């Protein structure tokens, strides 16, 4: 499999301070690709760079020809805080996921698909509610449904389980696995849910201002990086008990 998305020596800056550097990795077609790292390690920045929402400072990101922008679905981080007082119904927002298909009006089929996606996220009863009157977890489900509508080949998720209850979280991971294995979607996800994600993911990128680990999920499990990271996690856990 050749590279779908390739990072070569990429770095990003904010106000001319480098926040991540020396990224070299590739994402292949059909990958279940996961990014780990502690807060502020540059995960969201990498995703934004990949989506061309943020320019690279150094290096190059190359995309293969069949990587089309209008086949991506995207779930931004903290989607629940989106546009606080925007008047829009849930359905209007979910439907807007279809608009990247170079068309101006929705078709009947779009409506059916949107309804199905709402059903997958168990949010069909919210369909006609005003978006800004939902709870954050409910909002997160709607934003996920919109991303599912937009995603034809690729789904990019930035901490998608934020605010979801345990059953919704496990439903979401189930759904992502299904999309990846059955519908052959490429999935690129940031998550802190390491143990759960390692069950499904193919490839892992671990960031800490630079690239600490890049490789298959299996290798990651046995790597030094994972051990150190989990050690920290465990220590944190002991602290709270």
């Amino acid at each position, binding site marked *: 499999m050749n590279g779908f998305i390739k990072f070569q020596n990429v770095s990003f800056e904010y106000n001319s301070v480098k926040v991540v550097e020396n990224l070299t990795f590739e994402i292949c077609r059909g990958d279940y690709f996961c990014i780990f790292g502690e807060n502020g390690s540059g995960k969201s920045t990498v995703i934004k760079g990949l989506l061309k929402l943020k320019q690279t400072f150094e290096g190059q990101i190359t995309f293969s020809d069949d990587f089309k*922008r209008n086949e*991506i679905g995207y779930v*931004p981080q903290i989607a629940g805080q*989106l546009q606080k007082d925007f*008047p*829009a119904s849930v359905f*209007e927002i979910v439907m*807007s996921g279809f608009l990247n298909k170079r068309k101006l009006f929705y078709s009947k089929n779009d409506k059916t698909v949107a309804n199905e996606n709402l059903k997958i996220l168990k949010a069909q009863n919210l369909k006609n509610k005003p978006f800004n009157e939902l709870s954050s977890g409910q909002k997160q489900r709607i934003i996920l449904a919109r991303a599912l509508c*937009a995603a034809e080949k690729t789904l990019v998720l930035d901490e998608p389980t934020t605010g979801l209850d345990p059953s919704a979280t496990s439903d979401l991971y189930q759904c992502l696995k299904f999309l990846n294995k059955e519908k052959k979607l490429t999935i690129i996800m940031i998550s802190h849910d390491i143990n759960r994600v390692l069950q499904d993911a193919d490839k892992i990128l671990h960031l800490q201002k630079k690239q600490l680990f890049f490789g298959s999920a299996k290798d990651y499990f046995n790597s030094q990086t994972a051990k150190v990271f989990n050690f920290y996690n465990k220590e944190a856990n002991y602290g709270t008990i």
Partner: protein
Amino acid sequence: MELFSEMFSYAFIVRALVVGILVSLCASLLGVSLVLKRYSMIGDGLSHVGFGSLAAASAFHIAPLAVSVPVTVIAAFVLLRVSENSKIKGDAGIALISASFMAIGVIIISLTSGMNVDVCNYMFGSILAMSKSDVVLSVILSLSVLSLFVVFYNKIFAVTFDESFACATGIKTSAYNAIVAILTAITITLGMRIMGALLISSLIIFPTLSSMRILKTFKGVIIGSASISLICFFAGISMSYVYSTPAGASIVIVNMIVFLLFSTINFLMSKRKFIAKLCVFALLFLFTSNVFAQPQRQKKIIELKDKFFIAQISDIYLNTKSYLGKIIKYQGIFKEEIDENGKADAHYVVRYGPGCCGNDMTVGFEVIYNGQYPKNNDWVEIQGHLKESEKDGFPTLCLKLLSIEILEKRGKEQVTN
């Protein structure tokens, strides 16, 4: 209803209504997008840019719209860039540009014609400032704004709601931002004539905010805002007609009342949205059905009344073609102009207008009559055909009289609008 048929008998009010309806529709639609993206100030900035360019155009005697539309469109792009760029404070940038253009406009005006009625019109708006060709251009432009908006409605929603999602998933957000900017610029320049540079941005902001009080879906807000805008425009124009208040300010006042009303409704019936929606549509329906039920009568004789005496005469001068040959009827003071030999060489029927700098202005037409002229300063009622004539080498207008009648009871000699 009497009121409406009376209003519709003035050609210039009908023109203002046509342009005003279209412009307020455009403004309210675009307003939803601008307000939600926190770009309301762009409207204000653009209106000042529009003012500056209108002033420049009129100083150099170029068609005002031909200059101000492109200038404002360019300014819209710049303002959009400025407010997207987080390094410069967006609102400060807008204030900067808008103040500069305002200053340029004022300087140009003071260097050329001085502060005059025209400037006043640009600042505070006037329903009289439109010639027929202006109207045609305005109608074409605002219809294209409307149709573009309808065509791109869904995309505009996506870009307004979540620009980074739209951008990440391959929608050309900058193109849609540009479309909104261009449409806004055009709408503002068109609306400025009626509303005035200082008040046009309210046409963008108020309807959206009002309809957001009670409606919670994007489509609902769009439709609500368009309806509110139309209703307020009609109500404002009618108010301006009845109380002789400036049109722009009256429309803003009505908008403000509606906003307060809707805020109260929202407060009182936060649980009964349906009823509130029903109220809006019932109001809208009542209003439009009344308006369209009015037969538009074409009067043979155009009568100038006390109300809008000056306005209508300036309209006759502005749009002479559509009045030529028609019979015009009005009352006024008969004036004789005496030449150096002591012979009467011209006759006028006039009224006194608002004085400017101590000089009383007289408003009326030169009259030509085959029969016996009355005495100087008599109060008369005349009827006559409008003709083009020449005076001291300049083309002007006069009335070829059919009848002239001396009235005992003198009417309103001083008129104000």
